[in-house]
């Protein structure tokens, strides 16, 4: 008998990722069915569009957060960075009067740059991500107010800016299917991020860093540089979120954004991504963001008292993640 034989021992069935997504999806469907039964007004085209639209900003932020969380980090600056990117778009488009495309570049560029700064704090200066991004959260919050002089910047002089999120390219091609552009952009970003994660070297290192950073380093990989790249990419995606919110509000509101990070992180975790790093999917995050949006919208449509909405949301976040744990057989 050679060593070869011993390796053919029965192997435990791989804990199915397909199955996993199915379950998060099942929670979503259950919520949708529940709300539909509870109120005839819930499952209407216009309300579904409202839910999708509501998912767009949080969904994009959550995708940005997913990348960081897979590396084993966390990003608390997401919300205020989103706002800061919106503000910079306002500066470029309204104050400088540059053409639309420069506004897009400004949002994404600001996001990437700020992500790079956070990434440098984390990778080079070894500041724990929680603190590095908590600091960034405050810095960016303050900077948005400083840059704007605490006044909103309106995009009235940039025709077409509001169409970025509100228009409907799909509705134009397929009338009767008026999916807002914001949602389209969400799905494009999701597709891009999923591609990065599953098909590229950057994605590979994202998982590797979250799994065992020291091992990555010992393998001769320039772990710091890759980590910074991931933070920058995540920042750029948050920048797209900033663009979306600016377009939806047709203005850059400098005081917005605090608290959005927790919502995004909740979506990520409900979608099955582990806060310990090394594991996660974009599809899961999308479903998580949808669950959050459906929940918020549904409770409002049912006219649940606002204070009870909060209680129920808290409870459902816990239950959703618990269901996920049960499925993985952790308890």
């Amino acid at each position: 008998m050679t060593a070869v034989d011993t390796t053919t021992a029965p192997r435990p069935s791989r804990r199915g990722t397909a199955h996993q997504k199915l379950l998060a999806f099942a929670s979503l469907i259950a919520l949708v069915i529940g709300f539909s039964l509870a109120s005839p007004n819930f499952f209407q085209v216009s309300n579904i569009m409202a839910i999708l639209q509501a998912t767009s900003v949080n969904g994009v932020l959550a995708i940005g957060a997913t990348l960081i969380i897979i590396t084993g980090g966390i990003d608390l600056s997401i919300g205020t960075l989103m706002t800061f990117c919106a503000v910079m778009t306002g500066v470029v488009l309204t104050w400088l009067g540059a053409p639309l495309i420069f506004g897009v570049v400004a949002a994404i560029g600001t996001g990437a740059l700020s992500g790079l700064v956070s990434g440098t704090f984390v990778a080079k200066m070894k500041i724990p991500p929680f603190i590095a991004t908590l600091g960034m959260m405050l810095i960016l919050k303050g900077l948005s107010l400083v840059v704007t002089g605490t006044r909103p910047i309106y995009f009235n002089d940039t025709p077409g800016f509001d169409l970025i999120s509100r228009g409907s390219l799909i509705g134009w091609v397929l009338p009767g299917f008026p999916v807002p552009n914001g949602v389209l952009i969400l799905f494009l970003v999701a597709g891009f991020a999923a591609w990065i994660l599953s098909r590229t070297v950057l994605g590979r290192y994202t998982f590797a860093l979250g799994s065992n950073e020291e091992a990555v380093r010992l393998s001769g990989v320039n772990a710091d540089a890759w980590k910074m790249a991931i933070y920058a990419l995540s920042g750029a995606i948050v920048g797209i979120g900033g663009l979306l919110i600016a377009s939806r509000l047709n203005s850059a509101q400098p005081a917005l954004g605090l608290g959005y990070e927790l919502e995004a992180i909740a979506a990520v975790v409900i979608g099955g991504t582990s806060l310990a790093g090394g594991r996660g999917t974009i599809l899961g995050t999308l479903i998580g963001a949808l669950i959050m949006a459906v929940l918020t919208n549904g409770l409002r449509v049912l006219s649940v008292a606002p204070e009870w909405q909060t209680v129920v949301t808290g409870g459902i976040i816990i239950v959703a993640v618990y269901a996920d744990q049960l499925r993985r057989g952790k308890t």
Partner: protein
Amino acid sequence: MRHSSLGGGAMTRLVRMEGIDKVFPGVKALDAVDFDLLAGEVHALMGENGAGKSTLMKCLSGVYQPDGGRILIDGKPVSLPTPRSAQDQGIGIIHQELALMRDLTVAQNIWIGREPRKSFGRLDEAKLNADAAAIFDGMNVKMDPRTPVSSLTIARQQMVEIAKALSYRSRVLIMDEPTAALNDTEIAELFAIIRRLRSEGVGIIYISHKMDEIRQISDRVTVMRDGTYVDTVAAADTPIERIIAMMVGREIQHSDIAIPDLSGAETALEVIDVSRGAELKNISFDLKQGEILGFAGLMGAGRTELARAIFGAEPIDRGEIRVHGKPVRIASPSDAVRKGIGYLSEDRKQFGLALGLDVRANIGLPSMGRHSDRMGRINEGKLSEVARSYIDMLRIRTPHDAQEVRLLSGGNQQKVVIAKWLLRDCDILIFDEPTRGIDVGAKAEIYRLLADLAKRGKAIIVISSELPEVLRVSHRIAVMCEGRLTGILPGGARQEEIVALATKREGKTAA
């Protein structure tokens, strides 16, 4: 005596380390150590736990920067500031502590940092897997490159580490205790690979505490003691006893086991028809007070699973466990410890130690109740005193009992785990691979210790993948294969009998 007879030959000198110093806070780990490596030789590096072997190799592989001395490669002084720079010099290493990314697949782990790419930074997953498969074929190991590493046992992970090191096609290959988790057949496969590499002119540095391996595979042996260089000798004409003497600087007493008469002894543990899924099938045995029951078997035979099941770390589907004749329900490790069962895990890093805590806290972990008063106040003085007594007894090399365990050498960490269970003083002790990574001297101490414990009436199970070890310590030997208990042999059984049972598959007899 510094220059070995081989050194002057025609073989090219790949590496030369001169006067290497390395100081850690509180520890001078290396003190002017010299070392050299020729092309096409296997150079064994020997020394007790904490002698500085791993540290020296980390200096050579760019993980640590030496505080003094110089490293020459191909005769030219080099600096190795990062692991990458060492790789670029053709130096590959298998680290003592496994360094894998658990959430990635086997192939992804092997090629990390060198992924085959297509355009736009896209990964060529097919090539990645095919290349990994080719390496395992070359190793004569069957492994699906798409398996996530998290689902592999330690031994299988070690295989991945070896494959990864081979994939670099290095000119210098460092192996820091590669066989600590392997069984005999796998070790044989590994040696075949080493011999092949040697014939191709690769220089191999080989670290192990298994003395017989040194004989089998190495050309030269360098011995270190307490961070200093002792000597380099030719393996062929130096008796093992001499090497051991150089390592430990003292005599080691061997004691042969005397199998006690246990006919009158009380039964401590009965395992009746325990089963779980495909991993454990109808396992029954009993264990008497004062008895040492060895467990042999191939990798994955289910010994660890069985131990964890008895200990309550994993559930059982069916069967009964009795302690001192009374049926007990053990739902968790804390139940088990309360019933007087202790379990020393085979994976110290993951399951055995709180690496961030100090030696004293780790030793005291299971026994806090006995070192505190009713209000939960810890009797620090008493705890420190007993911790120090175990540090002395097991010769744990640590500057003091408040040193973080993470800073100890691998073997010394293992001793801390042993100390913690000795202090807990359970009636029934299960040792899973207790001597993994432990040096010869300490091994002998531990064997003596096991015998002592048995003499004092403890019931002991020793799981080991080293047959000589099982034979050396056991009063009886249980053999497992694929989740079944295939037989129990009396102490002093022949090796062939054990191997036969270890490969006795269901429905057939051994090949």
